[in-house]
């Protein structure tokens, strides 16, 4: 029997403990800031911050594919949109509108789309996967755009907000502050969940697929199945972001299912730093903030995409790993 020297393991464990402590202190500090934020920010910025969190969740969900599994999805608008329309359907069909039903139907819609995409596109790689996801999302877009009796077509759907209802605990109308807290809770929980997944043995398999797919198969992993589950998880969390968006804005529109949303999602990832989970949230915040500031200073008619695109190019040249890319190994430890 081969004996393993134990003293090699111990300092490792100790190092991780302090790393864990630093991580949680940082996490709590940022959470505290985000919890307090709606109490001090004016109404506009309160809503703005909430929306950044929602876009951040969408970006984070696609990071599981882009940053960890190494599959670039240009179809996240489909999952986001199905989440949004699923929630919309539940809120319209059931009276009074119920928060948890909206959540359930939104997630079911996204899961259905994700299952479809996962089944057909995970056997493809690289650009072929990207193109296939793009095509699938456009199929969903066309269906939603043209099926007017159900989806409202071009006009989308408008509905009223459910109460923030926690069974036996709490029941009240959403205010913009409680909405923010609710979104924050969902996004933070999603982050912790995704972080746990990416650090688990399963997550290591995903990263191994990203690094070297053939090798991963050669050491005994059924790569396709891992990819499918990865797409499913990613789709579910993108759907969750869609549900939150529907709750926040009380409408569902086909624009959000259009592939431009998917493109923005990839840009958030690249700007913030792929493979970090939090990076994409920062990227989403940065993108939204720059866009808002540009239209604020130069007016609504200003073609903000031109300077934003130039900023993006400069970032890719000088910050190829994104805003938080430098912390990648540390965050994933």
């Amino acid at each position, binding site marked *: 029997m081969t004996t393993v020297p134990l003293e090699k393991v111990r300092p490792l464990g100790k190092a991780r403990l302090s790393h864990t402590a630093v991580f949680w202190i940082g996490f709590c500090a940022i959470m505290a800031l985000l919890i307090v934020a709606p109490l001090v920010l004016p109404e506009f910025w309160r809503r703005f911050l909430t929306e950044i969190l929602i876009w951040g969740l969408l970006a984070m969900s696609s990071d599981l594919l882009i940053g960890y599994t190494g599959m670039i999805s240009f179809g996240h608008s489909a999952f986001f949109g199905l989440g949004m329309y699923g929630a919309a359907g539940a809120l319209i069909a059931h009276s009074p509108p119920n928060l948890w039903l909206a959540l359930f139907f939104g997630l079911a819609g996204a899961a259905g789309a994700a299952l479809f995409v996962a089944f057909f596109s995970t056997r493809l790689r690289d650009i072929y996967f990207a193109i296939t996801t793009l095509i699938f999302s456009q199929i969903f877009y066309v269906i939603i755009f043209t099926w007017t009796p159900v989806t409202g077509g071009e006009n989308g759907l408008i509905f009223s907000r459910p109460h923030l209802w926690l069974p036996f605990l709490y029941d009240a109308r959403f205010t913009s502050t409680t909405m923010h807290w609710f979104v924050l809770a969902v996004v933070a929980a999603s982050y912790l969940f995704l972080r746990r997944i990416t650090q688990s043995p399963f997550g290591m398999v995903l990263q191994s697929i990203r690094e070297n797919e053939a*090798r991963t198969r050669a050491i005994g992993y059924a790569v396709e199945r891992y990819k499918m589950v990865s797409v499913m998880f990613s789709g579910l969390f993108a759907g969750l972001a869609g549900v939150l968006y529907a709750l926040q804005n009380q409408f569902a529109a086909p624009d959000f299912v259009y592939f431009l949303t998917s493109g923005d999602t990839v840009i958030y990832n690249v700007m913030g730093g792929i493979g970090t989970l939090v990076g994409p949230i920062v990227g989403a915040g940065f993108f939204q903030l720059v866009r808002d500031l540009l239209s604020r200073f130069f007016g609504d008619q200003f073609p903000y995409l031109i300077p934003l695109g130039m900023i993006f190019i400069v970032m890719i040249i000088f910050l190829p790993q994104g805003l938080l890319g430098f912390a990648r190994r540390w965050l994933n430890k």
Partner: protein
Amino acid sequence: MGAQTSAVQGSPVRDRGAAAAPILRTELLTVRFGGLAALSGINFQIARNAVHAIIGPNGAGKSTFFNCLTGVLRSTSGRIIFDGEDITGLPSNVISQKGIARSYQITNIMPNATVLENVRIAAQSRRHGWNMVSHHGAFADINAKAEAALQSVGLLSKAEELASNLSHGEQRNLEIGIALATEPKLLCLDEPTAGMSQAETDETKELVQRIAGDPAKDLSILIVEHDMQVVMELAQRITVLNYGAILAEGTPEEIQRNPKVLEVYLKT
């Protein structure tokens, strides 16, 4: 050298009937690429716990044969029987689970992961692969397996280094370590000393001898190698491939004296 006796000895753990059977056998294995027969009708076997080498000039079909055994390529016809089981046409992940591991001719590791992570991912492929709730470093059995594999290839002291920071020779050995971490019954090494300095080659040679002689591993080794000195010292049996067919087979002494082999190697 007593090569023939050690090839027949087999593992003491197994019963005599199983020990006599070869670990791997191919029957009329043929691979065609269009009109070209890369392998034609190969009947081949590896004895249990032996080190068996395949040599041959470039284009002889060595890599094709390797790819066939490990499920990367599908054979056009013929059968592959591993440990008494027909594994013809199975995908490479299933073949890995059955107990055949391979190292690659071109270094094929995860450069952005640490040495330990590289090996651990291979070690956890038998268990815990679908676990989503625990930290990947939290499994004592996997860590022990991974560290044992690193020790076998002499990289335990570099466990926490990024794989990309290793020297070429060390990366080649890590390559073997990854294959070993899946605890195979048959280890296929594709030119393990390619691009190595003489000192590194000697080290790798010793490494292969060490793992081949380890009674705890119950391991058979199939090795493709260009360095004749390495082959002659390591292998108990050698098969020479030429134009997709077996030209000769025998002990290193027999192969060195075989006129057909000499002709092929002198010509090229």
